[in-house]
């Protein structure tokens, strides 16, 4: 292939870490993808809270998986019965921060922020407009047994009460703000956070036509390996509250992601997350290591995707020949998709920029040399 054509390749789609862009392309890993989608469908049919644990090494594609399903809503595309799965909401949540001493409050804040007051208002207003508000508020009360929380959700459609609602949801309201919407308690205890989360989840999954089982909330909880930073008391606090929330939320699927450094550590997730959380896991999925076939499929998909999104007309694996692609896959050794992305992008960048980014190509004879040069660069 000509250098000119290579220069036209759109490598911005290939990243070392998944971005927040609207489209997260998927390469290779077909079995893994099928397994996830089947498990998600199973969770939808379960009519109960459902936990999925996805484990793998760093760079194997966990965050990518989460973002892919959150953003592209690929789940809906891949289902066989679209009417059953037509209404799902996905929320992506990062893991607990290292220095946070209140991990459950942090989890609560992240869910509230991700859902957003605007979305809640829209949903509550639709419920009100459909004449179902009383049924809805009864359902919230049944779930939380808390009049204050019912008051919040009753007031959400009223935009003039925005500030009051916002402060209460932050767990930092004044008496005046609480009085403004008829809330008595401060709602800043863990049990309040659990109840508010339950109410939010119920709102999101509420269906005015009475078929609420058709709607499901997916929480994609990334970086749970950060639990290693939580002390036992914090961990216990999180697990206890999370369990209470999870167990009462029948339209919820939680996908937990856990990274580790090498394959021998499969199983460490259960130890770090402890039985309090792992007992809620219905299905475990391991991110596969790329063998030669997997690498070939990953690279082929990646290269074709780049070509499809570039202004080049050439068919086939660009800029590699079929033979060089085979060689690349067979010689590249055990690498994660993140490392493969890095190598590919680095190669193309090197060609594009001619000499600005310099790999000592003249001294590179094997793929190992290439990887070494890239790692050093």
């Amino acid at each position, binding site marked *: 292939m000509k250098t000119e054509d290579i220069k036209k390749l759109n490598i911005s789609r290939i990243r070392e870490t998944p971005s927040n862009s609207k489209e997260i392309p998927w390469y290779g890993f077909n079995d893994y993808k099928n397994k996830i989608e089947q498990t998600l469908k199973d969770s939808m049919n379960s009519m109960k809270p459902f936990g999925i644990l996805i484990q793998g090494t760093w760079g194997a594609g966990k965050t990518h998986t989460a973002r892919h399903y959150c953003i592209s809503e690929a789940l809906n595309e891949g289902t066989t019965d679209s009417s059953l799965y037509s209404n799902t909401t996905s929320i992506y949540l990062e893991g607990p921060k290292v220095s946070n001493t209140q991990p459950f409050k942090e989890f609560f804040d992240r869910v509230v922020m991700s859902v957003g007051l605007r979305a809640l208002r829209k949903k509550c207003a639709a419920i009100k407009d459909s004449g179902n508000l009383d049924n809805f508020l009864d359902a919230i009360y049944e779930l939380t047994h808390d009049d204050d929380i019912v008051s919040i959700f009753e007031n959400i459609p009223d935009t003039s009460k925005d500030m009051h609602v916002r402060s209460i949801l932050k767990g930092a309201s004044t008496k005046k703000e609480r009085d403004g919407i008829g809330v008595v308690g401060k709602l800043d205890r863990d049990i309040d956070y659990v109840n508010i989360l339950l109410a939010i989840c119920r709102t999101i999954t509420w269906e005015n036509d009475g078929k609420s089982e058709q709607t499901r909330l997916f929480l994609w909880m990334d970086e749970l390996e950060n639990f290693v930073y939580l002390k036992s008391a914090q961990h216990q606090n999180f697990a206890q509250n999370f369990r209470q929330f999870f167990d009462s939320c029948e339209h919820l699927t939680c996908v937990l992601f856990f990274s*580790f450094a090498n394959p021998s550590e499969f199983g460490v997730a259960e130890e770090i997350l402890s039985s309090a959380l792992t007992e809620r896991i219905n299905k475990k999925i391991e991110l596969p290591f790329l063998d030669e076939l997997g690498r070939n499929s990953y690279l082929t998909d990646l290269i074709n995707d780049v070509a499809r999104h570039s202004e080049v007309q050439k068919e086939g694996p660009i800029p590699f020949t079929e033979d060089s692609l085979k060689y690349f896959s067979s010689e590249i050794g055990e690498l994660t998709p993140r490392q493969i992305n890095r190598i590919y992008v680095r190669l193309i960048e090197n060609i594009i920029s001619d000499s600005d980014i310099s790999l000592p190509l003249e001294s590179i004879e094997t793929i190992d040399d290439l990887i070494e040069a890239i790692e050093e660069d």
Partner: protein
Amino acid sequence: MDFASKLIVDTCSAVAFDSFEVRGKKFLELLSKYFRIAATPELVEEAKRCKRSNKFSSENSHASLWIYQLSRCCGKRKDRTDWEGLSPILSGTPPEQGSLGEVSISWFAVGECVEDSNSLIIVTDDKKARNLLINELCDMFPQVTVLSSVELARAIIIKEIKSGKLTLDQSKSILHDLIASLASNTSLPKEEISFESLTANFIQLRSREIKKLKNAEKVIRNYEN
């Protein structure tokens, strides 16, 4: 007192121990029950500096008592912080101002070995200091041993298991908390922690340490039978 050795704790490890408790007791307090604590004036100054800059934990800090304890432990030995005399064992560039604690520890260790023939345990999590100076020192003077804070904690936990004061589950959770404390101690400059990449290494460290603890507990049980 259970262990015969003297113990000298580098300030970065003392900071990590500050929020760490075993059976509701501050670990720093527990240390003096098991070891003869040693200190140098430079270590006392370093601990004071860390206290002033709020590097010790903010709640229930044991820093003041620890500093008092250290001041009382400063023995007759002259405080030396010159690195030139240690140059035969220095591998790399001479320490900067911040590493004077390790230099004074090294001189203290030399004094203990050549004058009193005492055995000494140095506790540090500062990888740089270990590579630069302390590992060489231990190679040269077999009476000197270096432990990380997690290893020291394990030694004490094992004693507590043996005496029936801790169960294995409690011990695992204590060890986990120390590792979490080391991991989340943002007041420590990252390069001072002897773990390269944080999360991955903390997970590995945790697994390794808990495995060792489990094995030790089994051996203790066999020993008692």
